[in-house]
């Protein structure tokens, strides 16, 4: 008897092959021969490329306030180019002396956006809305100026990151509710509303964003009475909103269709009106399902704002490109694009992670 008990393995912990570094490697990288081959290929690629990249970007690179000649001689990346041009890339042709204004405006704007992402602050409700209203007024005053001794800056001089952020944020904020109404309209029992929604969605989805922007910029003014002119930036913004709404509508419609019929029936049986049942029962569930595709759409939309260059607006991508048009810095376009890409990546990655967190958080308590 004692013999057998002594031979018993230690059951209080899982075997060593299941835990720790080795366990993790076995489970994730070498669980089958196919997986092992893929892992080896991946490791080989990492080993061959990473050192070169590090050497180029960090070791042989030129940092700080250096001339283009120094860069030409060095073998690595020319971050001096970014140092020299970062203000132009970020703010475009906004008057150089006044760059603090778009900077502060952007900080206010981003604080509002990130602040609105913090869940406990949602409880503020209307206060949050009031903060937004106040914040946007400040952003407007800073960007345009013309009062409080600030020099007036026409919006045709706006550019770079603030422009991209404004277009993307307002595009999202307005396209979203419009998309909801279009999606509901498409499922409406009223034939007139349904056909209008369908026609709108299909029409907008059928043409590329570029052509909508182009029409907004070139064609639209032709229809306006003489003397009336709507600003180019506003037209681009409206174009982006109208485009985003059509795509958003289809995503939301998919969410609406995923809600079981019983939910609609229970809401009806209770005596809720159409709008009450949409607001309290159907949309909260449908929108929750559509978070992943919706954020996918937001990310796409954020990057699509770069198409506004075709109507002559200087968004972040365009200012980056103009920066290396400078004859001295021409060879360093890679650095320019990388800088621009890094900024885009930060925002898109944040959106992606935030949506994952939000999805988990919302699902947390109502596990089925």
């Amino acid at each position, binding site marked *: 008897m004692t013999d057998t008990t002594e031979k018993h393995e230690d059951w209080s912990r899982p075997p060593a092959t299941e835990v720790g570094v080795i366990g993790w490697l076995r489970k994730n990288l070498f669980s089958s021969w196919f997986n092992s081959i893929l892992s080896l290929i991946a490791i080989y690629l990492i080993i061959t490329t990473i050192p070169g990249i590090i050497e180029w970007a960090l070791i042989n690179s030129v940092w700080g306030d250096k001339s283009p000649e120094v860069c030409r001689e060095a073998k690595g990346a020319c971050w001096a180019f970014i140092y020299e041009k970062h203000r132009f890339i970020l703010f475009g042709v906004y008057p150089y002396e006044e760059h603090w204004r778009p900077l502060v405006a952007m900080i206010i704007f981003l604080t509002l956006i990130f602040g609105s992402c913090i869940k406990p602050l949602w409880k503020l409700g209307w206060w949050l809305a009031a903060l937004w209203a106040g914040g946007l007024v400040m952003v407007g005053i800073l960007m345009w100026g013309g009062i409080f001794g600030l020099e007036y800056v026409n919006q045709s001089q706006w550019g770079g990151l603030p422009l991209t952020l404004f277009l993307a944020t307002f595009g999202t904020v307005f396209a979203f509710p419009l998309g909801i109404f279009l999606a509901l309209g498409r499922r409406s029992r009223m034939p007139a509303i349904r056909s209008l929604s369908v026609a709108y969605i299909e029409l907008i989805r059928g043409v590329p964003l570029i052509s909508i922007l182009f029409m907004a910029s070139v064609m639209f003014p032709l229809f306006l009475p003489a003397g009336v002119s709507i600003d180019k930036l506003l037209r681009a913004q409206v174009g982006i909103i109208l485009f985003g709404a059509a795509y958003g509508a289809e995503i939301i419609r998919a969410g609406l269709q995923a809600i079981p019929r019983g939910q609609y*029936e229970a809401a009806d049986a*209770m*005596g809720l009106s159409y709008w009450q049942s949409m607001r*309290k029962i159907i949309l909260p*569930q449908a929108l929750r399902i559509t978070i992943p595709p919706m954020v996918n759409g937001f990310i796409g939309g954020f990057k699509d704002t770069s198409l506004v260059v075709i109507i002559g607006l200087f968004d972040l991508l365009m200012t980056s490109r103009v920066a290396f048009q400078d004859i001295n810095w021409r060879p360093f376009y890679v650095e320019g694009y990388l800088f621009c890409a890094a900024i885009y990546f930060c925002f898109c990655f944040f959106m992606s992670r935030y949506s994952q967190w939000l999805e988990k958080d919302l699902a947390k308590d*109502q596990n089925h």
Partner: protein
Amino acid sequence: MANAQEAAAPNLGPAVELRHMHKWYGEFHVLKDINLTVRHGERVVVCGPSGSGKSTMIRCINRLEEHQRGHLFVDGLELTNDLKQIEAIRKEVGMVFQHFNLFPHMTVLENLILGPTWVRKIPRKEAIETAMMYLERVKIPEQAHKFPGQLSGGQQQRVAIARSLCMKPKIMLFDEPTSALDPEMIKEVLDVMIELAEEGMTMVCVTHEMGFARTVGDTMVFMDEGEIVEMEAPEEFFSNPKNERTQLFLSQILSH
């Protein structure tokens, strides 16, 4: 606070009246010349084979389905296309579904106070008190802050019943409330329904629980192929069914 049953008293007409009602799904004639009167306080149990139109009939009573011919009165009001009228009737008619249809994104308590606060415009605090009272009655007050997905089927169905009762309905409709439940949970739901019946609630109940029908039913309705084939008091219905189809159905269902 006036009880739902007491409030119903002034209307001396029937609670529900279906007169020569017909319904089609496209070409398919689902309900054929349905005549049914439910008095206030009466418990009607509807049974019949699958596809006979039981669900369709009771879903017409709160206009989840539209009838195409004949007349349908609920508490003296006729159901027509008039949206106001439909909403008025839905306030007075509670419905319990086979698959509970609780709102999964809200806690049990939120499910219960939604109708009272939004449809009946009752202050939130009062609605919560009423909701807790009904949760006590269906014996799950401790689940108030859970989400429906965290409850068993039997508990969910009891919440669904409480949710309907919170609207203080005059009439309750049940569409096979126990047929999606595991056997051990059926009793807890039936007990709640029996209690409700004993308090005098007007009920129209589609079920194959014949024990329940015998205990609380005032009238048995047997449907087949869209028609009401037989309508009797339970003793007569079970001991002495007149129609062949009823006899066949009963022999099948009681042999189980």
